[in-house]
């Protein structure tokens, strides 16, 4: 029981984290029609910034806030200098160019911070276990991630559905040329959206940093997961990204936690313990393949044309 609740919460936490990453990706994808492989690099930069600033200021929260600002600025700079010129080009060009950016960012990090990973220690008040149900404790920090991510998801939803900028974003997603023709400064809007996506990726990175080590290439595996999520959810759909992210987070976490035991009932111990990690890593891709075969446009396609 304890294990089930704990793993369930872990799945939720991982799913929400994936959502932060996928939300930015799906916005950029849906509005600018840009395939940004370098989104994972922004996630990595968020983690590196947080580790550096936290060590510098001595405060985890202050470091996290500064890192958030830094990834926002980095995203805007990246958009203005490089990615802006890719809009309207072939998707293949996007893949190639942002693949180049990944190489650049990984190498730049190696140059600046060195090849060894960094650690981002938590303040004492975030390391205590919190009782959530009678007899069940859960780490405060993971709980904090869930709360922050849910809050951000809510803000994002309200921002996109209830504000003027959000309206422009939605309009941009459904018809780019038209809102440009109506006199909206579309360049500025794009830069804003990209910066927002970068900040969300940075937030995901800096929140994940204390759980895993901060290292080069940390953004790549999770980027693929984020892509799987937006493909399952339907490109450009934030709601789809949210549901798919929770779904994928759950499947991945629960699969890793319970699959070995399940397999052990059918296979011999040694075979099960080696097959289980591979199988649970595969589960998500299997899910994506099934979704794409059944619904080639994803579960919640954004623009039904």
């Amino acid at each position, binding site marked *: 029981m304890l294990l089930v609740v704990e793993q369930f919460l872990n799945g939720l936490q991982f799913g929400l984290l994936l959502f932060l990453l996928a939300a930015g990706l799906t916005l950029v994808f849906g509005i600018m029609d840009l*395939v940004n492989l370098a989104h994972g690099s922004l996630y990595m930069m968020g983690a590196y910034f947080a580790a550096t600033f936290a060590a510098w200021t001595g405060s985890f929260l202050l470091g996290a806030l500064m890192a958030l600002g830094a990834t926002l600025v980095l995203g805007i700079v990246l958009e203005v200098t490089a990615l802006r010129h890719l809009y309207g080009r072939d998707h293949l060009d996007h893949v190639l160019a942002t693949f180049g950016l990944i*190489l650049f960012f990984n190498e730049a990090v190696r140059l600046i911070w060195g090849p060894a990973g960094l650690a981002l220690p938590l303040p004492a008040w975030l390391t205590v276990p919190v009782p959530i149900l009678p007899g069940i404790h859960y780490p405060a920090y993971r709980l904090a991630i869930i709360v922050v991510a849910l809050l951000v998801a809510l803000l994002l939803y309200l921002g996109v559905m209830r504000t003027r900028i959000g309206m422009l974003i939605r309009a941009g997603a459904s018809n780019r040329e038209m809102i440009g023709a109506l006199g909206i400064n579309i360049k500025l809007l794009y830069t804003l959206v990209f910066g927002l996506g970068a900040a969300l990726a940075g937030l995901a990175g800096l929140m994940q940093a204390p759980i895993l080590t901060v290292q080069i290439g940390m953004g790549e595996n999770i980027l693929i997961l984020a892509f799987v999520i937006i493909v399952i959810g339907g490109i450009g759909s934030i709601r789809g990204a949210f549901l798919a992210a929770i779904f994928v987070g759950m499947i991945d976490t629960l699969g890793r936690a319970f699959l070995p035991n399940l397999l052990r009932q059918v296979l011999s111990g040694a075979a099960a313990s080696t*097959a289980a990690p591979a199988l649970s890593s595969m589960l998500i891709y299997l899910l994506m393949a099934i979704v794409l075969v059944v619904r080639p446009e994803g579960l919640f396609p954004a623009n039904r044309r």
Partner: protein
Amino acid sequence: MKAITVSKAVTALMLAGLVLLPLYSQLSGNIFILTLFTRIIILALAAASLNLIMGFGGMMSFGHAAYLGIGGYAVGMLAQEGVGSGFIQFPVALAASAIYALVIGALSLRTRGVYFIMITLAFAQMAYYVASGLARYGGDDGLTIYKRSDFSGLIDLGNRVQFYYLCLACLFGVIFLIWRIVNSRFGLVVQGLRSNEQRMQAIGFPAKRYQLVCFVISGTMCGLAGALLANNTDFISPAVMYWTRSGDLMVMVILGGMGTLFGPVMGAVVFLLLEEFLSQITEYWALIMGPLLLLIVLFGRGGIMGALGRAGRG
């Protein structure tokens, strides 16, 4: 007329260079360059196979490295089980790649555009994790191949020069095959599907069937590259299938010139030599390579072949 001659001259020069390379290596005593170019030729073969579906067929596969792994693992696993004969290993490698391509292609071709890019990527990642789970064959750490494929008496893969020429012959054979395919009725249909699938379907061509056959041919060719690669490194590991490797292959194709016969070869030679050259100058070679890719995308339409064509015209 002149446009054709410039790119043709450069291509001919490059091919002549590839044919004469072992001679240079022998004379100068530089063995390293032969090993390097064996790898370049094998990856050029893989890039050429990707170009068949990407450049001519318009199918943007982001999971082509999976075939490198499948071909390689076929050789490695058979060698591990004591089957050393290349006459068994290579056909198995090709057949395994073809079967994988058939299944993946049948599922992936239901989608298009970005979704196709992503689903091929997902399947390749799946193959990567399957290979990581093969505990009997090294799992994550990979599998050392103690004995190269044995073509008893016919050709000795342990001999550097013989192996080099085998790879080069395979590359030329595959390019010849692609040339024949592209100019056949089948190839014209596939290229027609790239430019306008709806219209081709309206004329009465079963679009998916043509694309699937093309996808399988390409995968099988890349499986050959995988079998050669495993023999070249005497080692196979899941890392061969990692998604960045698929990205590398795409870069080679686009760098050289998508949809041209010799573009991918040119792309592979330039990309891998650049990587080698930059990594000798600085440990941080990717710091230059990354932005270079960005610039090539932004300003170099049509890759090297396109640039050569423009040079000829201008």
